[in-house]
């Protein structure tokens, strides 16, 4: 019954490897969002899931990024063939109405 949880909290990967980031939203929240936070770009929207509707993928920066949400709950963000510019903190948020509640984030470092 706590807040949004994300795992891992930190991930270091080599350039070219694939990574998966996980988000567990607040129970009962129908909407789930992924954002990316980097020094140069601030907080950027990536993808949004609402119930059983098709996700809004308009913020994904390239086709190397994808996400899925299974059973209307847990979500996984996958980045294929990681690049150094993918290094950032990846934040997940969930909501029932307009108020979005964020998890602690996953810090991704691509070496």
């Amino acid at each position, binding site marked *: 019954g706590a807040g949004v949880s994300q795992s891992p909290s930190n991930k270091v990967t080599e350039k070219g490897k694939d990574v998966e980031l996980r988000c567990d939203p607040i129970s009962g929240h129908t909407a789930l*969002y992924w954002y990316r936070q980097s020094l140069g770009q601030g*907080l950027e929207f990536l993808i*949004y899931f609402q119930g059983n509707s098709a996700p*809004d993928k308009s913020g994904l920066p390239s086709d190397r990024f994808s996400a899925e949400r299974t059973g209307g709950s847990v979500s996984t963000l996958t980045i294929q063939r990681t690049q150094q510019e993918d290094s950032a903190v990846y934040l997940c948020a969930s909501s029932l109405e*307009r108020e979005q509640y*964020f*998890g*602690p*984030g996953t810090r991704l470092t691509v070496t």
Partner: protein
Amino acid sequence: QQQVKQSPQSLIVQKGGIPIINCAYENTAFDYFPWYQQFPGKGPALLIAIRPDVSEKKEGRFTISFNKSAKQFSLHIMDSQPGDSATYFCAASVHSTLTFGKGTMLLVS
């Protein structure tokens, strides 16, 4: 195109002072304006939010002022404390996804 402009980038106030952070938006379709507080190593935490049909909202020591005609809104922190030292983000949304300002680093000394 930056849809939400936030200023200042950083701010230092003395304990007990009233820091004011300003945001301006371009998209008149925005209808929800939250403020988030973020401490290092943590995710953003929702502080307070306002809709454009009201000009002011207070929650504890935090107040949002909203000027629809000027397309501006601001956060005031009354009687600021050292524990308020954090980065503050304004945001705006139409239906769902949030568009964020670049953030303001506040130091209360």
